[in-house]
């Protein structure tokens, strides 16, 4: 068992951290409290505040780094102020400031790092840089109580299947090209459906009305998968459907009436992509020999994905863990949680020269000191 309280300051009965997240189009600020001792059903992390503001673009457009960074710069002070008020804490009660070190988009990451560095100097507090993926995994474990799960991390920028072994979260399988969320978002752009509240959510709602399954490429390679070909294929189908290309017999009947609807396309896309995800998860479960599955990341909110995964896991007599949108979608609280774990192990912040961000930062680069 790892001892988590080697650096508990005298007179303190708990640890408090504030986390800043801004690796993509969500800006999140969260404040978390840990009590000494190992985590258990009676000793849970306490969420004091968890707020988020999302940069929404018009239908048909994605978020560009420069504009997203501007959004983060505009909102970060307001969000921090609000979260401090919400938590009811005094600044002096905070132990450390945590920020997303990477991976993510350069400009948005940078704007948040600058905010974190400024705060650290203003309040004279240590700074901790956190790997975004580790944040998701640790928060998911803490919220659901999953002990040693296979983790499926699915979001706009990442698709990885991860399991813990010897102080690292090791990647067993991942996407070979684009991430699943990226695939869904880009198809939403093709359909010109709103990005509010999120493109993936809107695709999910459309898919619920679809029923006809159209065959799409299926590209699982061992425990890895590839999605760019599927996107290109379905984009073409949508293009033909919108432009009345009646020669395409996959989507038009002989008399020229459409065979399929936009809803059917969304339905088929989800069915194919999620079947691939569940398949690689099952393979990883068999490989690692565990019975638990934890889904994290923005796409993890999708109810259809959760249901499919549940069917597979129950068939294997296992357990499934998933969180709701508060913790699935990028948030500040997970950064605070993972950063605070790091802080409890080392007792100090990063050297000032290390408090930078990086666009490439793999999950298995982080030494997980707080697990054995």
């Amino acid at each position, binding site marked *: 068992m790892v001892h988590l309280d080697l650096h508990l300051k005298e007179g303190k009965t708990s640890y408090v951290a504030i986390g800043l997240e801004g690796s993509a189009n969500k800006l999140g600020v969260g404040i978390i409290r840990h009590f000494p001792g190992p985590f258990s059903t009676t000793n849970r992390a306490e969420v004091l505040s968890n707020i988020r503001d999302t940069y929404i673009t018009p239908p048909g457009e994605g978020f560009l780094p420069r504009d997203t960074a501007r959004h983060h710069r505009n909102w970060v002070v307001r969000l921090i102020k609000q979260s401090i008020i919400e938590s009811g804490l005094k600044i002096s009660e905070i132990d450390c400031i945590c920020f997303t070190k990477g991976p993510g988009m350069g400009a948005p990451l940078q704007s948040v790092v600058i905010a974190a560095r400024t705060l650290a100097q203003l309040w004279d507090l240590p700074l901790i840089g956190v790997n975004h993926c580790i944040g998701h995994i640790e928060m998911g474990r803490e919220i659901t109580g999953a002990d040693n799960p296979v983790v499926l991390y699915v979001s706009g920028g990442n698709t990885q299947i991860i399991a813990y072994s010897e102080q690292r979260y090791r990647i067993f399988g991942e996407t070979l090209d684009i991430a699943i969320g990226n695939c869904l978002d880009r198809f939403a752009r093709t359909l010109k459906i709103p990005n509010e509240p999120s493109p993936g959510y809107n695709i999910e709602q459309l898919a619920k009305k679809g029923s006809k399954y159209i065959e799409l490429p299926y590209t699982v390679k061992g425990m890895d998968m590839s999605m760019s070909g599927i996107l290109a294929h379905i984009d073409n189908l949508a293009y033909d459907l919108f432009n009345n290309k009646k020669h395409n017999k996959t989507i038009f009947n002989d008399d020229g009436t459409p065979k399929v609807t936009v809803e059917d396309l969304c339905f088929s896309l989800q*069915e194919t992509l999620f079947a691939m995800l569940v398949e690689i998860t099952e393979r990883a479960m*068999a490989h690692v020999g565990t019975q638990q599955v934890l889904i994290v990341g923005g796409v993890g909110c999708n109810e259809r994905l959760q249901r499919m995964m549940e069917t597979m896991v129950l068939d294997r007599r296992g357990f499934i863990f998933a969180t709701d949108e508060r913790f699935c979608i990028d948030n500040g609280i997970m950064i605070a949680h993972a950063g605070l774990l790091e802080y409890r192990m080392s007792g100090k912040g990063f050297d000032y020269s290390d408090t930078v961000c990086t666009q490439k930062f793999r999950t298995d680069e982080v030494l997980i000191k707080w697990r054995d």
Partner: protein
Amino acid sequence: MSDELIQLAQSHLQNIPLQVISQGAEAIVFTTKTHPYLPTSKDSHTEYIIKYRPPKKYRHPQLDATLTKHRTIAEARLLQRLTNIPEIQSPGLIALDARNGIIWMEKVGYELIDYDDKISSLKNWLWRYNDNQEKALTEEIKIALEKVGCMIGKAHVNDVIHGDLTSSNIIITEAQEACLIDFGLSYQSALPEDKGVDLYVLDRAILSTHPKYAEQYNEWLMAGYERGYGKDKKSLIKLKEVLKRYEEVRLRGRKRSMLG
């Protein structure tokens, strides 16, 4: 789950006694003493393998049916092709029921008497000696691993990519010959890239399953692999290309910082 799936398998294989030997993510493997179409004498000891891909409830029935059919046919086709290549040992194909995802094949390997009667996969075969360094690095093991490497080389010369080279997917027969099994992820390709990745998968698998002696084992495997390409000039050029690509794959971006 297995009870339900075994019943399902049994419904496709009526009056055939089945015994589960392994259950992976994709398929269940049974043994049986009954041959699908030849008469079986009561005291025959020959066993056959039945590989059954059960339907997956989580995916759309249409998708499930297509995948099961495609994968079963692909695997059977490859097994059939391999029987025509004498240098590569693999189980012979006996029967195929593509729609229900069932393949019958010959059984290879034997039970390791000194290792809980487990099947003689390379993994178990090597693990017997894991705690004894002297025994783990004998000439016997060196020869066997070189044979394994040689066979993988031969497969690659014939443009067969195994796709899932782990020590559990290689069988050591009683005559101490190597035999490849489980072609569920296999395909044909002449690209050095695919061969390099195949070798990389093996390298990783040995490293994670036999960490103590991985370096030596991999060295022997690679020595055998190079031998598998033979001596004529054309093959040696191909070998050089594959080895170069293998190095590249090892250093490649996405996978670079995989620490195990």
